[in-house]
């Protein structure tokens, strides 16, 4: 005797905003009538913080601060103990997305040290002989549009051997001149990052130009914090020895789930940066870093 339990959300993209109602159906499919001890459905939103291994030692003292932060939680009884008829049963449900008190619903974010996740969980309790059934379903929360609308301001950059920091032997560097601009560093998360880069000239052929999207996650509180930068994705925009003087477009779509509007709270921060990486033929890396501010409009 098999029974399947499933949660289906009404919206195909599973994206909800604060104040909206998360609506859907619980789908139960079984061949024969089924005895159960009650079905419950819970909604939960949590921020999980994790410490990177390299900083664990230092922060053991602040163990408290890495406890999950609950953003929202509610529970309803879908069905009392009883019997479900055989076949397919759909039980509709609806949760309003309201926070208690002054808590804010942060946007869904899957990171390395910070995870913000919202999920629905449906449990069916059954008699001792049969296993309880449960089903998880993640849904995505987008935060309210930020009102402050900023006009995009282009950021120009020029990279030459002289502009580089962090080089050991400046004199050994080949000559090159790279110009370019980002259309904005204050980006709308649903719009791609755009701009262009021009290799004006270079003594050595280049191998590749890449855009590296980096997340900077900070966990901690007043007592101290851990700040870690990790790569989200690396997008190549030029391959091989490109034509000099030609403007190469910078174009990167912000990946869903792995990016969110820049977030700053008392316990943690999620920020983003982009690196324009130029790889020379001898695998020399030239990197120009741009902090980004993401928002949702």
């Amino acid at each position, binding site marked *: 005797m098999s029974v399947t339990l499933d949660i289906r959300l009404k919206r*195909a993209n599973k994206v909800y905003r604060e104040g909206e109602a998360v609506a859907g159906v619980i789908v139960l499919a079984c061949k024969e009538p089924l005895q159960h001890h009650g079905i419950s459905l819970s909604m939960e939103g949590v921020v999980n913080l994790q410490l990177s291994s390299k900083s664990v030692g230092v922060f053991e003292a602040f163990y408290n601060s890495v406890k999950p932060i609950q953003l929202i939680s509610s529970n309803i009884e879908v069905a009392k103990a009883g019997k479900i008829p055989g076949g397919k049963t759909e039980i509709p449900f609806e949760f309003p997305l309201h926070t208690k008190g002054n808590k804010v619903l942060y946007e869904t974010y899957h990171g390395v040290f910070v995870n913000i996740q919202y999920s629905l969980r449906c449990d069916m309790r059954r008699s001792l002989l049969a296993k309880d059934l449960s089903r998880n379903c*993640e849904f995505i929360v987008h935060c309210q549009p930020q009102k402050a609308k900023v006009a995009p301001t282009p950021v120009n950059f020029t990279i030459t051997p002289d502009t580089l920091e962090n080089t050991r032997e400046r004199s050994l560097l080949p000559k090159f001149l790279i110009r370019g601009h980002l259309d904005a560093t204050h980006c709308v998360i649903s719009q791609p990052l755009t701009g262009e880069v021009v290799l004006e000239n270079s003594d050595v052929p*280049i191998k590749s130009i890449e855009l590296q999207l980096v997340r900077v996650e900070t966990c901690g509180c007043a007592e101290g914090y851990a700040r870690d930068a990790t790569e989200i994705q690396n*997008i*190549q925009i030029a391959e091989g020895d490109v*034509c000099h003087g030609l403007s*190469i*477009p910078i174009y990167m*779509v912000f990946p869903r789930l792995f990016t969110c509007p820049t977030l700053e709270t008392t316990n943690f921060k999620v920020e983003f940066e982009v690196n324009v990486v130029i790889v020379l033929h001898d695998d020399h890396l030239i990197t120009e870093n741009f902090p980004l501010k993401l928002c949702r409009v």
Partner: protein
Amino acid sequence: MQSLQMRSRGRNYEAELQRCRPEVALVEFGDYHPLKPIMVTDTKTRHGARKGSTSSSSSSSSSVPPDPLSSMLDGTDPLSMFAAASASETPAISRSASAGDLGRKRKEKEEEAVGADFEPWSSKRGEILARFTTTEKLSINLFMGSDRGKAPSPGSSAVSEKVRTRLEELDDLEEGSQRELLNLSQQDYANRIEELNQSLKEAWASDQKVKALKIVIQCSKLLSDTSVIQFYPSKFVLITDILDTFGQLVYDRIWSMCSDPRPLPDSFTVDDVNDTAKETCLNWFFKIASIRELLPRLYVEAAILKCNRFLNKSGIQETLPRLTAMIKGIGDPLVAAYTRAYLCRVGVEVAPHLKDSLNQNFFDLLGTFRQIGGESVRKQLALQRVEAPEYLTLYSPAISWILQCIAYRAPEPLLTEMMERCKKLGNNALLLNSVMRAFRPEFVADRATDFIGMIKDCDEAGFPKHLLFGSLGRSLACADPPESERLTILNEAWKVITKVRSPRDYVNCAEIWVEFTCRHFTKREVNTILADIIKHMTPDRAFEDAYSQLQSVIRKILTYFHDFSVLFSMERFLPFLDMFQKDSVRVEVCRSIMEIFIKHQLDLTRDPVILNAMLHICKTMHDSVNALTLEDERRSLALLIIGFIRMVSFGRDFEQQLSFCVEARATFCNLEPVLVQLIHTVNQLAMETRRVMRGSHSRKTAAFVRACAAYSFITIPSLSSIFSRLSLYLLSGQVALANQCLSQADAFLKAAVSILPEVPRSISVEGKLRSSESFLLDFTNNFLAMLLVVPDHPEHGVLYLVRGLLNMVQDYTWEDNSDAKVRVYVSALPLLAAMGQETYVYSVPKVDSNETLYGGDPKFLSEINKLCETLIGQILDHLKVLGRDEGTRRQGALAFSLFGVLLAHGDLRNNKLSQLAVNLWNLSHKHGHCEPRVSVRTLEFVKHQAQQPDMSHLSDTVQRLTLQSRT
């Protein structure tokens, strides 16, 4: 045995003929006649008015009033009705049939953008694959799982179920992920790619979308690898096939998601697409946007470009320019050019009306053109040991395709602008070449002089000029340049072409220009060009490698020169043919010339130039025949040669014609059908002479016709087919007799009789073994009819030939259980009867037949009667034998036919004979095998005959002929 005297009844052929002639009825012409053809009036213009009416418009069939057939057809035969209908409706049908009403509007719109005259990619595909090949070893480096678009967070506890399974899938692939296949031959490579294509489909079908995407990404990554650069264009073709498959799979999948409750119409808008489908589609785009490497990202996004239609209206319009710009990031110019070609290809397919990005692509391409001569390219070429000209040709498919997309139905100014831009780039040869290939031939032809100027200005280094002239020539072959410039164009072009050193390059180019020359110039110019080709191709036997091009030269010349006297008066034409030294090719060329000759030479000819040349050509064909030649091949060659022989006529100069035949016989001795034709020709010649001399030969003509007979007489024995020999002997004998060559006629007939025993009992007819009996019977009957007019030879006995024939028939080993021999006897009886008449039923003018020779000599008549007696005796014997065996049916039939002969030719006043006739009648009816209707008809005939004067005796006989009722 019953001894019986057969007496033939006297005949008055003249009177009989009078009797048999029906009343002459005047036939009014224009009246109804059953065989008068149905007049089919072309109803093309009228068919609109006759919609639905089948009977009302019978008047349309003009002048044929009551013909039952035509009135049934309503004046129009069904075929021409269809033709008329289809002429006006075809476009409408073809359009509506494909897409129904919904898609129609869109279809029409699309057709505006891309019509049937746009040469599709699929046709280029094969050409590229065939052209860009390599013998170097290739390698495929599949690095499955190397690029994880979105690095999954380590230890993230709450990845959803779906994501987890996908990750597992990913891990599966990663095990042994990097597969490098080395040392692949080109064919292996293509096979591997096809395997990948298959596994893509499989993965898709088994719902492993991630794996499918990975395959596609890995494949498109192969395109960034330019090792073995000669193979790159072919590699591009193979791999873009996979991309096309993928694009179609994704599109179909999303399409099918929207098919509930009813399938999307062709012209759907974004609003018709449901959320799930949109979400899926969006997912694909996000996934692709996170592909790490540039080239796969570009290619895969281009592959699913069409899916933008599910998301928003302007998606394609925005994506195309973006992708176009992104291509600038590709460093290798060759890779970039092909990426552009792919983008243009997808763009033209998905959104044919968006021309801007096509143009942009081309301008970007021009912008990066200096890279081709750049440092890194040079290094790479040096490393792979590839010459610059060869490297440059690698670009041509891509650039040509892009230009073709742009040039398709493009306004003139745009083309002019493109040309100007090319000029600005210092007349880059590669570009120029592609421009000439892609732009409309008319456009190129109008500016041919400009183009020649530009070609001249190009630097020789990179791109070989003969290729440029080749492209120009190709355009000029389809479109005509202004008349005044033609000669200059040819001169300028040939000046360059003739300087091309490599025979291969030279002939490739020359072949193209032959067409232009043939189109616009006379034999003088063509002759010059042929001379030039010969000059180039003869050293070192270079022609051996260029047969196909040389053949095409011949073909082109033949298309434009149908006048063979002109053709053969080109001095260089035959020497040109001499370059085809490989037998099979030479025969093929000769054959094509002959075919054109037969098709286009309408008048008989005696032009010595044509005859000499054609004889030479035919001889070449003839000489190719050997023991291994297939029967079909022989037949078709013979037909061609016969076609030639029939076109030869020397008019009144018969002797020359005969000597031509003599020469032809010597030349074509291996092809029997040709010999047969020659004999016919000679016989015809003799008859023609007779006609000219109005039947009475002079000494000279008599000698000539004897020569003709001699020709036939010595030619016939060389034929192997016994029946053609027999019939030709007979025919030639007839001709000889008609020309009063008695001894020759005798010789022919004697020869025919003497080879009769050689006739095999079965012969092969169309590959099947058949009994020769019926053929032999036909021949002997024919022969007997001829014998009536042949006068006896003074030195041989009476009826020498008849006896001879009958003896041969008797000695011939007939098939067992065959009545053939007796049938010959039966049919010899009418001959003998006819010979006994005072005046023969037919005779040859100016030849005395036996009637005159013997003048009804009783000895002669008794000779005939004796012979008849013997024959009848033989026949009756045979009938007896048949009665004994199970041959009653055959016995009946044979008896009946003998009865018929006796009735027609025998003198039934003779009691014995009439008794025999009655007996035969009874015998034939004895076993009831006789067809009653025939019996009744025969009986009626006899009754009718009995009413004639002199035939009253028949009424007695009739009394004794009883009809048997069928029991």
